[in-house]
Every structure is written in structure tokens, then in C-alpha cells.
């Protein structure tokens, strides 16, 4: 028990170091872009004489050496202060918190959808290798796999919203809707269908292909032969011996996808006008709203690090071999 606590503590320490490195790297990268924040503000203000610029620089501390600015930024982050967006006239942390639920709802739904549908499709294909099911799944997942996300999104809008008028094409709630409670939830769910499916399709294909390949590998393994020699029925044989082992690599992949829950939806959010972090980042980039951009970078990198840790822990739970030798 003590060993596990220590192991987790060490992992947290490493994770903190990684996040700090990412913050600093992002900070420097942003500063490599031509023009400093002062010139952006000045540009938006419409007046840009040298004196005003110098005044702005002094006001925001931009005349300080870069390492002092970095220090100020990092110590702010440690106190929960991600900076202030002058463009939106709001603290960055408020902006992010406001947008985070929408993104998590979208990406979380897509994640669960992809995982369930992908594994189910892959299992159906792998267990019926060489038959019609396998062929259909393989073709479908290849199409999902090979088609660009935004194109699928646009085509889905064209088909399901414009032509068939079944599903809303953009936004998270109906315009002008004042529904509350269940009615509001239903409205959101209604809007969620197209973007979530679009976002999930690629990973559905990835899970399906991987599950299929993994099952084909596992089903010829010695211990599956042993299980058959024991006289096991098909159900337990597949569940306990084939699937249980074939799904281990899926955990790794799911961890990678989970890490992109916040940052991976920029395209989809843009296509479907979904009010999430991705849109926020995209707008911030276009408007050169550096504080917001840095804040989004921070949140996404923290998510990746956190989910990597969770993946490692989950792996320890599902595979007894891990942790025994680590």
C-alpha cells in the first residue's frame, strides 16, 4: 500500500514538472510570434504612436526581461490566476470555465460513443473474421478512418439538417429557447447528436480496427486453445479469455483519446458552432488574444498529463502483470 502511495506521489511530481515545462515552452513560443501584446492592443485601439506603446509596455510589464515576465506568469498560475483577456474584458479562468462544460459534454459523449461503438464493431468483425460482418465493418471503418473530420461534419449537416431537416446544424441550444430542466437537456442532446457523432467517427474506426486486429491475434494464442481444451462454452471463452485480453491495448488508445478531450474538438466546434474551448482557442488565435491562448494550452496539456496518469492506473487494475515488475 505504502508503495502505491509513493508511486502515485512520484508520478504527480513528474507530472507537475512536465506541466511547468509546457507552460514555459508555450510562453516562449507565443513570444516568438512577431509583435508583442502591446502592439496588438495598440492595433485594436487604433492608435499606435511610440509613446503610447511604451506606456502600454510599462503598464503590462512588457519592458521587463522575458524571464521576469515568465516568472510573473507562472507565479500567477500557481495562485490560480491565468491572466486577463483585454479583448473579452474577462479573466481568462472565467472564460475557460464558462466554455469547459460544453466541450466536455461534446468530447465526453464522442469518447463514450466511439469506445462503445468501436469495440462492438471490432469485436463483431474479429469474432466473425472472413465473414460478411467482418467485411462490412472493415469497409465502414476504413471510410470513417480515411475521411477528414470537417468534411464528414459538413456532409452530415447537408444531409441531416438541410435536406432531411432531422437534426439542428449548429449551436448547443435552439435559438431563443427558454426551456429549463428536462426540456433544456433534451434540447441540448438534440443539438449534440451531429457534432458528437462526427467527432467520434474517427476514433470509432480506430477502436474497431484495433479491436479486430487484437482479437485475431489473441484468439490463436495458446491460452485460448487451453480454454477450449477445458470444454468452455463459446460465451465465457470469448468474454473471459479472448475479449479480456484483446481489450488491453484499447486501454492505451482510450487514454490517448481521453487526453484530447479538451483540445481535440477545434474543428468540430468550428463546423457546428459549438460554444466550447476549441472555438475559444480558435477565436483567440485569430484575434491574437495571447492570454486566452496560453490558458487554453495550459488546460489541454494538464488534461493530457492527467489522463496519462489515469491510463497508467487503469492499466494496473486491468493487467495484473503491470505493477508487479514496475
Amino acid at each position: 500500500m505504502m508503495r502505491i502511495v509513493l508511486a502515485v506521489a512520484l508520478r504527480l511530481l513528474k507530472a507537475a514538472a512536465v506541466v511547468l515545462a509546457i507552460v514555459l515552452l508555450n510562453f516562449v513560443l507565443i513570444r516568438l510570434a512577431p509583435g508583442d501584446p502591446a502592439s496588438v492592443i495598440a492595433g485594436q485601439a487604433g492608435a499606435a504612436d511610440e509613446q503610447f506603446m511604451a506606456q502600454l509596455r510599462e503598464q503590462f510589464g512588457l519592458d521587463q526581461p522575458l524571464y521576469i515576465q515568465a516568472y510573473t506568469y507562472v507565479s500567477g498560475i500557481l495562485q490560480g490566476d491565468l491572466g486577463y483577456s483585454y479583448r473579452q474584458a474577462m479573466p481568462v479562468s472565467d472564460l475557460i470555465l464558462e466554455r469547459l462544460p460544453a466541450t466536455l459534454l461534446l468530447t465526453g459523449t464522442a469518447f463514450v460513443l466511439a469506445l462503445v461503438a468501436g469495440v462492438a464493431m471490432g469485436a463483431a468483425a474479429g469474432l466473425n473474421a472472413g465473414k460478411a460482418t467482418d467485411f462490412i465493418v472493415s469497409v465502414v471503418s476504413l471510410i470513417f478512418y480515411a475521411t477528414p473530420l470537417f468534411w464528414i461534419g459538413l456532409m452530415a449537416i447537408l444531409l441531416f439538417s438541410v435536406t432531411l431537416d432531422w437534426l439542428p446544424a449548429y449551436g448547443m441550444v435552439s435559438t431563443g429557447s427558454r426551456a429549463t430542466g428536462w426540456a433544456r437537456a433534451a434540447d441540448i442532446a438534440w443539438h449534440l447528436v451531429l457534432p458528437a457523432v462526427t467527432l467520434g467517427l474517427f476514433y470509432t474506426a480506430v477502436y474497431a480496427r484495433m479491436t479486430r486486429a487484437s482479437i485475431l491475434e489473441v484468439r490463436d494464442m495458446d491460452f485460448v486453445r487451453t480454454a477450449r481444451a477445458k470444454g468452455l462454452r463459446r460465451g465465457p471463452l470469448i468474454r473471459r479469455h479472448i475479449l479480456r485480453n484483446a481489450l488491453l491495448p484499447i486501454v492505451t488508445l482510450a487514454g490517448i483519446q481521453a487526453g484530447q478531450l479538451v483540445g481535440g474538438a477545434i474543428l468540430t466546434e468550428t463546423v457546428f458552432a459549438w460554444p466550447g474551448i476549441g472555438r475559444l482557442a480558435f477565436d483567440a488565435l485569430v484575434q491574437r488574444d495571447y492570454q486566452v491562448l496560453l490558458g487554453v494550452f495550459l488546460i489541454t496539456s494538464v488534461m493530457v498529463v492527467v489522463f496519462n496518469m489515469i491510463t497508467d492506473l487503469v492499466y494496473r487494475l486491468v493487467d495484473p502483470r503491470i505493477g508487479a515488475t514496475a
Partner: protein
Amino acid sequence: MTTPLLSIEDLTVALPGGGDRRHAISNVTLRLNRGEVLCIVGESGSGKSITASAVMGLLPGDQLKVTGGQIRFDGRNLLDLDENAMRRIRGDRIAMIFQEPMTSLNPVMTVGRQIEEVLETHDVPAAERPAKVLELARAVDLPDPEEIVKRYPFGLSGGQRQRVMIAMALALEPDILIADEPTTALDVTTQAQILDLIRNLQRARGMGVLFITHDFGVVADIADRVAVMQQGRLVEEGPIEQVLVRPSHPYTQKLIAAVPRFRTARPEAVPEGPLLRVKDLTKIYRSRRGFGAMRETRAVDAVSFEIARGETLGLVGESGSGKSTIGQCILRLASIDGGEVLFDGKNVGTLQGHDLLAYRGRAQMVFQDPFASLNPRHRVGRSIMAGPLAHGVPRAEAERRMNALLERVGLDAGAASRFPHEFSGGQRQRIGIARALAVQPDLLVADEAVSALDVSVQAQVLDLLREIRRELDLAMLFITHDLRVASQICDRVVVLHQGKIVEQGVVTDVFGHPEQPYTQSLIAAVPGRSWHGDQREPETSNI
């Protein structure tokens, strides 16, 4: 005459088209009686395992199909049963154990649960199962049964895993146990224990055992009757005394003659002046367990020996004895943590750059796995010439050498333009030898070089190594787990146990009159000892 427990009649299994023969097995007829151990023996490709799988109904149906014959058990033809009826027989009336204990158990399920599964699937009430699992674990002599059933397979040794397999197989007291090479992957001492266990359980329960093996030593130890298979056909069958001592079929005679035996004739004296001198060689592997202290494993612990030109020194030991690590240290494939390796007076451990390259031109290795040790995408000729070309030999000269070597190892010149997968295991090992010799080394390290080969092929490759060593006046380090093979080819042997030297000396002294208890136990565990005693020493092995 009583009805046999199992009778296989005219069984024929077709191979998928395009192979070099049409049937995996054809017209095999065999009987297994109650309380009897029938050994099916043969080389790879003889169809012995396919025969066993056919009885269990475990043939890969999309590749191998039974096209004729019957398998009669309990008054029924097993081939007529549907999958569900066959499933009920499997694990209950007929059980099977396999060759690879390391991979035959589900890695993510406790061993106790895996034993319990047999009981569960054949409808033993849940309340009775835990006690029965412990009873079975005890019956197969697993240490600390209450604790061990909670472990996962990775926490068990190979021998213990095979005991778990046997426990599963015996759970419902089957009428027939099919054992497919169950001891081939185990160390000799473990093998002897598992053979004992199978024999004892078979006697106590009166089972019929169908035992598949390639090893005549194992046959001698366990069989009542023997069936010899060659290329899918049964060539000879009879009681053990008859088949082993007076084999009638020429193929059986050839196989038995090829079985390596302990030789008694003392090897010639070895010339003075060692080419390779190993002094207090030490190799330490470090690993950290969680946050505990660093764990040190002394894989090789202060080992010293010498090899002269024209001499073959054997390194023998079980898995984990450090024998392969020593070979790797000598060739600098692994770093040296202590002591020194002196080659022609130079310290191998500190060689760098050009000196190391030059050393690799003088010391070469033949690896165990002829399938994995050649690049599958390179033509054989390219693999053989790579060494000389890397050492600056002109292409024309490298090609001349390659052709001469291919001829020397018994392959035709056309072999150079083919890929490794077009060759058999024995041919590939010949290519491996040619590859090692292409740089004209003075020292050859052969790491389990014949272990993956069938006995008849093994004998040929051993002959080849022996001749080449003499012709080229090589110093040879021959690493093997098989004492009989070591006895055949080595002048002197070093016996290793857990990284330390137990005993070393002239091969006939060490194996003929072992002084250390460990060496004695190793020799006692060699299968077929009593049978070898009956055999006259073949003249050819006295070199």
C-alpha cells in the same frame, strides 16, 4: 481382446492446397488402452500434434479438415459429434496439456480461477469448487496451495505453470490425458519431476495417456507402447522394448541412431596456450521493485575458464544459469561488469571503435533460433557477405568466400539468391554457420545452436560444426542445456548453476564421474538414462 479406450482408425487430415504434401496425416490407425501410456514420437512435420488435436476436436477448422477415418471413444465416433457434445467431452472425459507452459495460461486470470473454470463449465456445484481446486493444487504438488491459487500465471515458474495445466486437465478425472510435448520447454530437472508426476497420476487413476514427444529419452522413461510417425504416416508401432531396442523400420532405426548419447571415449588432449581466457567474469543486472532497494541479480558470478585453438568448451546449465550471458559478454554483445575477458592477450572489455570491429572479425556467434536470426527481407547471400564487406573485404573476394562457404555447409550455390523463409530449420542453421564463418573468425560461440532442430538434423549440424572446427582450427564455445549434445561435441565442459561454476573438466570425467551433487542431479534427470545404458556406444561419436 478388450475394447480399447480410444481407437483411431484410418484417420486422414487434409492440408490446404499449395503445400508440399496433400495430407497432414494419412490413414493413421492407433489404439490406446486403459491404464496405458502410448507415446507418439516423430520429428517436426510428422503429424503427431495434429493427431492429438484431431482427437480433441481442436484442429483449426479453416485450415485442416478431417477427410477420412474415425476416432472411436466410448462407443461413439468423435468426428460425428456436434460442437456442443464435443465440448462436453473436452476437459471432462478427455483432457489435454500443451507444450508451452509460459503461454498456455490466461495471463490476466488467477490460476485458481482457471482451475475452477474446468469445474464450472462441467457443472460442478459452486459450493464444492474451492475445496476441489485446493485438492487439485495439492495433487500436483504445488507449494503452498492456498496462496498459489490466488496468484497470476506470471508469478509462477514454468514447472509450476505446467503443474497448474495438469491440475486443470485432471480436475474431472478424465479417461484420457493427451500430453503434447508437455516437458519440451522445461529444464531437465523440472522435466524429470513433471514426467514422474504424470506417470504417478496415470498409475493412480488408471488413465490412458497419449503422450506426444520428439525425444526418445522421454519415450524411454514414460511409454508403455510407442508409435513412430513420419511425414503424416505411422511407420512403426509396438511395445517400448521392441521399438526402442529392436526397431524394425529403417526410419525408426535412423532416428534412434541420431539420438545423442553420453560418450565414454576420452577426447584427445587439447593443445596448450589458450586463445580465450576468461577471468572472474561478472555480469550484474539491476532492477528496482517499486520503491524498494535496487535489486541486484548476479547473472554471472566470478566465472573463469580458458579455451585453446582447436578446442571445444561446453557451457552447460539450466535456464537462468548465466550461460548465454557469458557468451554475450565474450562477444561484447553485453557489457562486462567485473573480471576480464582476454582474447589473444587483449582485454575484450575495453575495446573501442576499430579495435572492437577488428575483434568482431575474429569472434563470431551462431544463434539458437535459425528462424529469427536471419533478416527475413535480405537474400541469404547478402546476409552472409555483410560481415566480410563490413570488414573491408572486396566484394569479389566476399562473393568467392560466400560461395565456398555455402558449398562447405552443404547448400547449393543457388541458395545465395533465395530468402531465409525458403529454407528448413536445419538449412537455416547451416546458413547461420556460414554467416559466422564468412569473416574467418578464430573463435566461434554457438549458443544453443542445435536446440531448435530435430534430432536427425541436429546430428548433421553437430557433425558439420565438428568438422569445421577441425579444418579451421577454431576455438569453440558451445553453449547448451542438453548434456547429451554437450557430451557429443565438447572436449571440456563447464557446469553452471545460478551464475556460478559448479564443476569443470574433461567432458568424460565431468559427465562420467560428476563430483558435485548439482551435476549429479542434472545427469540423473537426463531422460532415457536407463535406455542409454543398454545401448552400445556408436563408433562415429568417438572423435
